[in-house]
């Protein structure tokens, strides 16, 4: 039965002011049930104040095999990091 239910990705916000974070996935027939299942599976120990459920097929993901073209060009380009500026003392911690 569960194989017929779509997969949902679950995001939970731990406290007001923080971001929703991905906590895992589960199966559910619809959005309302996905939220209910997320409540039962992921918030038993008072983990959250807000739940987002996104059907997994709606998430566009990069392919692991594209790792080279996507990320390698950024390696060895240290000048892209803002580490070459002198920070004035009165700017404080950055």
């Amino acid at each position, binding site marked *: 039965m*569960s194989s017929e239910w779509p997969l949902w990705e679950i995001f939970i916000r731990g406290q007001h002011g923080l971001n929703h974070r991905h906590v895992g996935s589960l*199966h559910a027939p619809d959005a309302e049930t996905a939220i*209910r299942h997320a*409540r*039962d599976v992921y918030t038993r120990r008072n983990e959250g104040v807000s739940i987002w459920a996104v059907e997994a097929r709606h998430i566009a993901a990069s392919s692991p095999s594209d790792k080279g073209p996507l990320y390698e060009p950024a390696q060895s380009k240290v000048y892209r990091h803002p580490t070459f500026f002198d920070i004035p003392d009165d700017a404080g911690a950055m």
Partner: protein
Amino acid sequence: MQAEAVPFLLRMGDNALILGHRLSEWCGHAPVLEEDIALANTALDLIGQCRMWLDLAGEAEGKGRNADDLAMLRDSWEFRNLLLVEQPNGDFGQTIMRQYLFDAWHLPMLNALADCAQPRIAAVAAKSAREVAYHLARSRSLVIGLGDGTPESHGRMQSALDNLAPYVGEMLSPDACDIAAETNGYGVSAEDVARECRAEMDMTLASATLDMPDVMRRAGPVRTGGKTGRQHSEHLGHILSELQWLQRAYPGASW
């Protein structure tokens, strides 16, 4: 707490204990992982509520018995739970229907108790009501989803309702103990609770496209003997033998 409150407190505690135990039997066996965890969560909520009610009952009784003594060392005729909650799990549909019928009564009951004049009863009821509001939201949505689902799920939900309908009357018909509880100021108007419960059931069963059996519309009880302890079904004895055997075989065992 007055000793007269004991039978009423036992009813609240025993309903939670027996239904909680029934649900715990699903652990590891539910049709999908998500429902398995949800059933176990509900079972744990109910066992927690049972502890609060039975501790109050033991205190009101004044014989030095705590919740564990009352849960583990009474025999079936001393239990005061509704016949509904001791009915077998059956298939998933029957378990969910039993849960829904109980939740539909349990929530208005707890909400009313939360406003009662006895502060400790009100506190336990208010704490439990927050958990039970979720139980009802969950069981209602499953009853509607499965009732108004495929022909297979509809058929299973209808036969679950037909099987359990005769036990609804006992829950909704006040007896001497319910009325005494009301007049003593720690109970609630059982009539009001029953009215609210019937309205909830009418609405949900209609949305679920399920036919309410005639036996559920009757004013008085049909099958009785659970909440008075006079005549439990044979199922309770089997539940207790599993629940109590360790304390019976090894009295005082703890870990």
